[in-house]
């Protein structure tokens, strides 16, 4: 089946360090989104990036469609960045129903 693999499963940083999160997928992605899930469970869309490079604030996502991978770079991490980062991909090309990876759990210490 269509799969989304994220790595690392967990990451621990000191405040100010950078984070690099990876997402690999098994089939052609028609859409790709990075989400942040707070410890309480809320999902926030960070970036929609099916191809190329996009920036928002301290976040940079680069998706290489042919290689079926995407990365999320967080620069100058802050304690409030702690939570789970999820990669979600739509493989269908129709109505968007993303398949989620298992996420990367990020902990940023002061």
């Amino acid at each position, binding site marked *: 089946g269509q799969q989304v693999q994220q790595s690392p499963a967990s990451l621990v940083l000191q405040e100010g360090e950078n984070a690099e999160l990876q997402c690999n997928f098994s089939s052609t992605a028609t859409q790709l989104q990075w989400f942040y899930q707070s410890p309480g469970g809320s999902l926030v869309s960070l970036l929609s990036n099916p191809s190329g490079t996009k920036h928002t604030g301290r976040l940079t996502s680069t998706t290489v469609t042919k290689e079926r991978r995407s990365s999320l770079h967080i620069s100058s991490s802050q304690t409030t960045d702690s939570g789970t980062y999820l990669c979600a991909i739509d493989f269908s090309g129709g109505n968007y129903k993303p398949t*989620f990876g298992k*996420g990367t759990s990020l902990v940023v210490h002061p």
Partner: protein
Amino acid sequence: GALVYQYPRRTICKSGTSMRMECQAVGFQATSVAWYRQSPQKTFELIALSTVNSAIKYEQNFTQEKFPISHPNLSFSSMTVLNAYLEDRGLYLCGAGGHTEVFFGKGTRLTVV
């Protein structure tokens, strides 16, 4: 901006009873609504995709008989968990959107006792 509200945020129901959860899209038209369940193991499972004026498509292991969904217009959807048991517990998320991006609500956390 685009917002998705889900309610209730938390609910507890007795084993064998049913509960209904709702999803409201504000600031955009939700041409499709995807309902997910995040289990205690943190895995996201797609339950069904609902598109206004089209048949609701359920994923394997999920049925209309167990999770009936209503999607009457471009701003509202509801889903009921019928005859809930322990394995139904988790965070139920509603993702509303169109073709390029999906916005999620904060979820309804279901506890079954």
